[in-house]
């Protein structure tokens, strides 16, 4: 199987518009193919109307497109029911909804939630806030020396019988892939509900939600070629039924009066307000478009790029690698010995290599590994071999300038 990276890149106007840049900040956001931009543009130009109002045909058309997008996501990710796909503004909103919705119902005072040291702040802070309000206890799985989830400790903490286990598929800092299929089964056996933060994982591997067997899965559109401001919260139907809505208002009600208000059924009960209609349509277009490509070939391409990168970085004694070389989805965190990541990133920026530096919304991870931050390179399917060559040369230049 071969992957034609040039043909893939040709779908992205960004590379024609910004030909001098090497974009290695894909974990922050990804570029959008023509199929996504045209789907959104077409909606605004041709079909723009609010959804679910139903009074005129234009609105009905818009609603049909919007609900078709939901069906597409449900089909592509193999959810059992379309009502299990809840639109939201992204993984952060979805995780806030879960923390708010489970606390005080499923989670009572004294109950436990299990997180990991690798989590992004979006999968830490909402739990902290709601847990504190309700007397729920948070446990955290530590890391091994190789900065991987300590599975032995995971099992030990499961013996404390947490009600909820929430973990990321792929670390947004290190790129390390967690064995979520096994971890989900272990958590289920211990009686816990499972939440998978798929923000970085979804572009690595599209989940088969029923096969994965998790209770909840969240992801953001803009990290899988889709628009910003839209994402999905997936949940098993009976669990979503019991989730307290985080947002109240229009759309999520059936009847409102000052004496009594009745909430709507799923999925709308968890979708207050006018949704990001164009965003949802764009996200569905992204996934449909992506499915046309040979996804295993893309994975292989990314692994080859990684090998190229490891080889080059190994020639530079000034580099301290934080990411491991195996089980990596395409994200490399590193530092230049003795130098602040922001200085390195600035020197790469001067050479038109776009990277990110800092704690990457994962301060507990950096506290655990004893570093104040790192430079992060995040690859994508549209990254080409010459990008890696340029990046390695630019890092060498940065090392030389910092001497």
């Amino acid at each position, binding site marked *: 199987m071969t992957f034609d990276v040039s043909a893939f890149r040709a779908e992205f106007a960004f590379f024609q518009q910004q030909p001098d840049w090497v974009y290695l900040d894909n974990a922050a956001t990804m570029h959008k193919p023509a199929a996504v931009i045209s789907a959104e543009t077409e909606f605004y130009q041709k079909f723009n109307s609010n959804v679910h109002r139903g009074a005129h045909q234009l609105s009905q058309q818009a609603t049909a497109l919007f609900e078709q997008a939901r069906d597409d996501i449900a089909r592509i990710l193999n959810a059992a029911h379309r009502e299990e796909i809840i639109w939201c503004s992204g993984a952060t909103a979805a995780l806030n909804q879960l923390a708010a919705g489970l606390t005080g119902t499923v989670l009572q005072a004294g109950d436990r939630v299990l997180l990991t040291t690798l989590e992004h702040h979006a999968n830490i802070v909402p739990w902290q806030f709601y847990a504190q309000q309700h007397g729920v206890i948070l446990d955290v799985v530590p890391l091994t020396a190789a900065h991987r989830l300590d599975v032995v400790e995971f099992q030990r903490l499961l013996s404390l019988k947490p009600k909820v286990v929430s973990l990321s598929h792929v670390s947004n800092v290190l790129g390390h892939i967690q064995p979520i299929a096994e971890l989900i089964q272990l958590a289920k056996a211990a009686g816990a509900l499972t939440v998978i933060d798929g923000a970085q994982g979804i572009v690595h591997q599209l989940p088969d939600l029923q096969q994965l067997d998790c209770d909840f899965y969240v992801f953001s559109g803009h990290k899988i070629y889709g628009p910003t401001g839209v994402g999905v919260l997936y949940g098993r139907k009976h669990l979503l039924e019991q989730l307290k809505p985080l947002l109240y208002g229009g759309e999520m009600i059936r009847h409102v009066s000052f004496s009594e208000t009745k909430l709507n059924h799923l999925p709308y009960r968890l979708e207050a307000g006018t949704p990001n209609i164009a965003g949802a349509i764009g996200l569905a277009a992204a996934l449909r478009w992506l499915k046309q490509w040979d996804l295993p070939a893309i994975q292989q391409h990314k692994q080859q790029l990684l090998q190229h990168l490891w080889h080059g970085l190994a020639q530079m004694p000034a580099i301290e690698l934080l990411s491991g070389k195996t089980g990596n989805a395409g994200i490399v965190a590193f530092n230049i010995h003795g*130098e*602040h990541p*922001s*200085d390195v990133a*600035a*020197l790469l*920026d*001067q050479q038109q290599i776009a990277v990110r*530096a*800092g704690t990457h919304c994962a301060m507990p991870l950096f506290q655990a590994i004893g570093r*104040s931050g790192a430079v992060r390179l995040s690859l994508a399917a549209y990254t080409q071999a010459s990008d890696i060559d340029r990046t390695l040369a630019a890092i060498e*230049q940065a090392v030389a*300038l*910092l001497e």
Partner: protein
Amino acid sequence: MSEINHQISDFFYQTAQALSLIEQQQLPLLLQPTDWQTRYRSLMQLGKTLPAFSALQQVEQNLIAGCDSQAWLLHQQESSSGRHFWAFDSEARLIKGTVTVLLCQINGKTSAELSALPLRQLLTIPGLQQNLSPSRQNGLLAVLHKVALLADIDLIT
């Protein structure tokens, strides 16, 4: 107590000497147009001659909030003359260099003299300004605000 004061004064005196040398020797070169490699290397080397901060000085009360990296600003006013003396350290070389550019132009000035200076412009290095990331700009702004606060002057927006 007087021994500690003497130490701090020594530190500010040495810093002032170093800043003066930087202003005379390195600053003119830095402000000349050149390729980005030379400019960045010069900027990142700029703070090297400054006396190092001790752990006593790298404390929370001296921290500048709103910085990507940890940065500390120290200040002492000479009671006889009212002149303000400064010292700055940062984990990030570019921040340290950029603020050093500012400090060597404002060190040892009175509040009245500082009020007359275009402080924001003193942070400007040709070819650098447009490449400052928003977070780095915020950090530098935070330094300016702290300078204004400590010198009791208004920062003209």
